[in-house]
């Protein structure tokens, strides 16, 4: 706006033009994604609006003077292109984040809008990424925009009193995108790279825009750490490698380093939360030079802390596995065999594969039988091909140790 003011010599006109340009930006970027040089884009639009307005509203000498000025400055080559301040662009991006992730929209709509407007993915790319058709994505976006227009859903940065609630919705959308990208629920390969990278990019942008929000930093760190193991998570033939067998030299140590800095930044803000804790758990793994050297008691303590924020069966499952690693398989099995937990997780293949792996570590035919049954149950439930192959191989190798 400063440049517009200088060029127009009229504060009101500059403000009006900037305001109009910002509104147009929001609408267009919602439809088409953010352009490569948003500053130049906005300035060009603002300038055009200013010219239109002057032509419409001014008369006589005033008008011709202003238009002449604008023509002259347009021709000048000594201005930088990115003249719309970084803060203003950041605000526009934040408005897009909070608007696309408005709780009045369905979660599927939030994800599709975020990928389209902030991620710049085409509807076809979104369809492939979310394992649905381009048409379904397009319809979802159209319906969402109808609701945005029909109910006047504002694209604004929420007020302080609602900010925490609203940022959590954004976190959830990014988490869904990352999860879809990092752990595909079906298909031959364990992960879909593009979405994970996109989630990281968006989380990084958000972490800059919300530098004071600890959980936003935690979310970025978590993504970086999980993604850092990407190259070690699969063999060349596509089969799965579990954490304790992964080649740690294949981990992305630059990402781990960025994550560690990010977690430290988060913790300094002094507002702990579940994403920070999840990130910390992953960081403990990342710091261990080998699986045997992992600080499992620390991980157990972190899961206890996580459970205070997220009382879910899955957290209890992972907590039990950590307990098993720290205190022996029977300690872990005692937790997993609790009826309430077993019932809650009965349809979850990881629960059964975890039980199988723990039974396998305890001597005796009774445990071997239970391991066998658990692998079979897991195989009934698994949908990812790579994981199915791994489970089948684990079941078979159990049979060999008679």
């Amino acid at each position, binding site marked *: 706006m400063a440049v517009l003011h200088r060029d127009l010599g009229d504060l009101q006109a500059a403000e009006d033009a900037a305001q109009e340009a910002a509104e147009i930006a929001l609408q267009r970027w919602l439809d088409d994604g953010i352009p490569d040089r948003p500053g130049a884009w906005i300035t060009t639009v603002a300038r055009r609006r200013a010219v239109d307005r002057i032509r419409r509203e001014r008369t006589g000498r005033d008008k011709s003077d202003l238009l002449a000025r604008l023509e002259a400055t347009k021709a000048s080559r000594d201005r930088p292109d990115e003249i719309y301040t970084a803060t203003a662009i950041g605000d526009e991006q934040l408005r897009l984040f909070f608007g696309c992730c408005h709780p*009045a929209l369905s979660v599927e709509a939030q994800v599709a809008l975020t990928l389209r407007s902030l991620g710049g993915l085409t509807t076809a790319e979104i369809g492939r990424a979310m394992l649905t058709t381009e048409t379904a994505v397009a319809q979802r976006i159209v319906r969402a925009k109808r609701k945005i227009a*029909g*109910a*006047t*859903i*504002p694209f*604004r940065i*929420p007020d302080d009193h609602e900010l925490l609630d609203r940022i959590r919705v954004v976190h959830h959308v990014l988490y869904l995108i990352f999860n879809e990208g990092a752990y595909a629920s079906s298909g031959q390969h364990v992960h879909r790279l593009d979405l994970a990278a996109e989630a990281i990019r968006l989380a990084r942008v958000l972490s800059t825009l919300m530098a004071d929000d600890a959980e936003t930093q935690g979310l970025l760190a978590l993504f970086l750490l999980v993604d850092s193991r990407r190259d070690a998570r699969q063999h060349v033939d596509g089969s799965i490698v579990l954490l304790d067998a992964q080649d740690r030299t294949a981990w992305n140590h630059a990402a781990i380093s960025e994550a560690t800095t990010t977690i430290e930044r988060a913790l300094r803000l002094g507002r702990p939360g579940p994403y920070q804790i999840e990130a910390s758990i992953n960081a403990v793994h990342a710091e261990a030079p080998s699986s045997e050297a992992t600080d499992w008691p620390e991980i157990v303590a972190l899961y206890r802390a996580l459970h205070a924020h997220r009382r879910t069966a899955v957290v209890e499952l992972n907590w039990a596995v950590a307990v098993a690693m720290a205190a022996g398989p029977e300690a872990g099995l005692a937790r997993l065999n609790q009826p309430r937990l077993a019932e809650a997780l009965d349809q979850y293949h990881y629960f059964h594969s975890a039980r199988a792996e723990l039974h396998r570590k305890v001597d005796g035919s009774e445990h071997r039988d239970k391991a066998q049954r658990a692998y079979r149950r897991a195989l009934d439930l698994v949908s990812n091909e790579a994981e199915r192959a791994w489970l089948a191989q684990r079941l078979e190798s159990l049979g060999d140790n008679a």
Partner: protein
Amino acid sequence: MKYACLIYSNENDGEINPDPTDPAFGEIMSGYMAFGAAVEAAGAFVAGEPLQPTSTATSVQVRNGETLTTDGPFAETKEHLGGFYILECADLDEAISWAAQIPHAATGTVEVRPVPDFG
């Protein structure tokens, strides 16, 4: 633009919708008086009324020129329409902010729906 705030709650729950002789009734009424004053002061109030319970409802349909009148609400539901407000708000966020202050939002559900402007 205008938004309808449709107030749904379980009529049959004596804690959520106490009898007028119950002191709790007075507390809820005070809540609505305060809400009404707040929306009026803010210039957001367009209309609003409580409704008598669904036991007093009559459903009317006209089919093939014949008027069919039935005792009761149009559908049996767990939560029942107990009242409404029409509010003038700048956007959905403002409407949501008001809806959250309606007393029965805490024990029931307030549905917020935009009123089309054909003007």
